[in-house]
């Protein structure tokens, strides 16, 4: 093993491999910053670029793209409330308020450090525990996944703001909208109204950009117009009140980052959950376990750390079932399979025997990628932070433009843009009348996987609910879901 590790490390630390990682990181960061260019799409485009590279350089390049796009997605979420990636949407909840309070640089720093932390720890877990953890992933069948989803959905209550009922309505509306498109079992169209574009469902970028960025810009425009009427100064540029990150801040967010990394690793190991659900779930858990003085939703560094650590922990963890049993844990991991096969490597249990040098080389490349991400992110951060100095009158029109670009680029059709605008209008109305757009998005993201697992679980249990008792992991998650509802109701009943 040591021989393989040494030769793998020498491959990974060669100038060519390091240059490939660095190139991948820069490309990934750009993809992450721009809304609409999703991580899987960037990976799919990047795979053919690696034809002429050596296997280690190729995989290192793609790993760099994936890791950095996850980290870069936070930039737009924090500074403009426009998530670069759907998985960064949850970062908007606290990142953007922080930026509005003049702490954009601090939020960007926390996002970067939490990303690198989550990524590094998850990579170490991958290196040390790939085989034993993969066997745990194998134990998660449809019944267990359904119970995980129900458990995740109960967290909607934790995020529903002032009215639990309106929060639940918003969450269920999100699930309802996620059912648009082809039925997962019979492939018959549902609510497509004859539009071919809706057969694939409502695009996730259109939903997240519309509900978060477009809605927020409508609200900002209203505020701007109101302040103009009141004769207030019109510059609107946000002065940074504090840029430094203190040791006390790091100590405060550390437990959240550790817990969220664990959530991200779990979301990566379980096939299908992916980074978006991982980040939302992690935020919900962090909010639910908030301590007195925490200000989740109003601009708390913990909220940024929770989502970014989890988001970045997903990819390395999703390689665990890929390397150990040949099962990709996320869409990005699935695309990486094609890159492996392109270079003559078939991921699975035999890969450690057949290509030990390559696997250890990839491990070392992943650590190099984390360090490169820290370097590129830290240099880029100073440039990105200047966005908050741009006047509101310039920011608003350009964010509207980015919303249009983002939703257009995802599917290359104006239909997505119109959907984004429609959802933005809906989000505006929902926000005005106290319906949480956050819970709507959680329902929307979780919806398709929930429906699929529910259908599979129904087949597995032959429609007999009592058979769920034969699945102890599922029972555990269902009990945890019930406990979270009970805790929420108790909190609601308690005098404020």
């Amino acid at each position: 093993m040591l021989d393989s590790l040494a030769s793998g490390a020498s491959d990974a630390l060669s100038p060519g491999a390091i240059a490939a990682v660095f190139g991948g990181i820069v490309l990934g960061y750009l993809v992450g910053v721009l809304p609409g260019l999703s991580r899987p799409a960037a990976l799919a485009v990047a795979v053919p670029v690696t034809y002429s590279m050596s296997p280690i350089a190729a995989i290192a390049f793609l790993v760099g793209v994936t890791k950095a796009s996850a980290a870069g997605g936070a930039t737009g979420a924090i500074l403009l409330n426009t998530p670069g990636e759907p998985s960064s949407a949850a970062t908007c909840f606290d990142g953007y308020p922080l930026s509005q309070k003049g702490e954009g640089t601090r939020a960007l720093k926390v996002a970067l450090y939490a990303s690198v932390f989550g990524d590094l720890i998850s990579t170490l877990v991958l290196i040390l525990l790939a085989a034993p953890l993969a066997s745990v992933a194998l134990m998660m069948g449809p019944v267990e996944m359904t119970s995980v989803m129900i458990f995740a959905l109960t967290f909607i209550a934790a995020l529903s703001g002032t009215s639990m009922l309106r929060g639940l309505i918003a969450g269920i509306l999100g699930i309802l909208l996620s059912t648009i498109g082809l039925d997962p079992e019979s492939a018959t169209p549902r609510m497509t109204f004859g539009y071919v574009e809706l057969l694939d469902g409502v695009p996730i970028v259109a939903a997240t950009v519309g509900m978060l960025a477009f809605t927020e810009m409508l609200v900002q425009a209203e505020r701007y117009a109101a302040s103009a009427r009141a004769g207030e100064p019109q510059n609107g540029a946000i002065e940074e009140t504090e840029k430094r990150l203190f040791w006390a801040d790091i100590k405060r967010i550390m437990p959240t980052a550790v817990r969220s990394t664990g959530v991200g690793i779990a979301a990566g190991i379980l096939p299908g959950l992916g980074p978006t659900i991982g980040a939302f779930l992690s935020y919900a858990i962090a909010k639910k376990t908030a301590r007195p003085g925490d200000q989740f939703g109003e601009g708390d560094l913990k909220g940024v750390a929770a989502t970014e650590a989890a988001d970045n922990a997903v990819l390395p963890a999703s390689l665990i079932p890929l390397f150990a049993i040949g099962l990709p844990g996320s869409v990005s991991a699935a695309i990486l399979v094609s890159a492996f096969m392109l270079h003559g490597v078939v991921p699975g249990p035999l890969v450690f025997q057949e290509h030990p040098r390559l696997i250890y080389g990839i491990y070392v490349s992943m650590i190099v990628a984390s360090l490169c991400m820290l370097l590129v992110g830290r240099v880029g951060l100073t440039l990105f932070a200047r966005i908050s100095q741009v006047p509101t009158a310039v920011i608003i029109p350009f964010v509207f433009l980015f919303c249009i670009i983002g939703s257009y680029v995802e599917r290359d059709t104006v239909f997505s843009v119109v959907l984004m605008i429609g959802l933005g209008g809906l989000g505006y109305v929902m926000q005005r009348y106290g319906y949480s757009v956050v819970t709507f998005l959680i329902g929307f993201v979780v919806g398709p996987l929930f429906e699929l697992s529910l259908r599979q679980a129904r087949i597995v249990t032959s429609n007999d609910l009592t058979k769920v008792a034969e699945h102890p992991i599922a029972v555990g998650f269902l009990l945890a879901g019930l406990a979270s509802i009970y805790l929420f109701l108790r909190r609601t009943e308690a005098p404020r």
Partner: protein
Amino acid sequence: MPNSKDARSSRRSALMRAAIELSVVGGACLVFLRWIAPNYIAAGTNLGLPPAMLPTSCAVAIGLLAMVQFGCAVFMRDGRSGRDEVAQGNAAIVAGLIAAAIGASVLIDYAGLVVAGGAMTGLASILLGQRRVVVVAVMALAGAGVMLLVAWSGL
């Protein structure tokens, strides 16, 4: 007793808002159940769950929750049914910006990305109260420039 009169008036308007909310949300659910689900969800095969099962369940659940929400507004006087105040908005600027965004997206198909980008940033600037032609022109050119970059990069 002006205070109790104010309270009664405030409660009446809160109940009115709750009734309007129920009629909008509940009405939307009824439209879904009576018109959208039967007409726009195909019956599917006889295998597994019917395609309409989850959407219909969601609509029913939303309708029931809206009724519970209304019930809370009627029977609870301590405001535990949630925030009912509606922030003052500026319908004209919101409608204008939505119309500008729709116009720009339509322009993508007819005049291309560059023109659409210029139109979006220029119109949004005007709607935000910018009246200096030079500033509006610079914003429109910058928007067109961003779109030119997008088109050039082949994204």
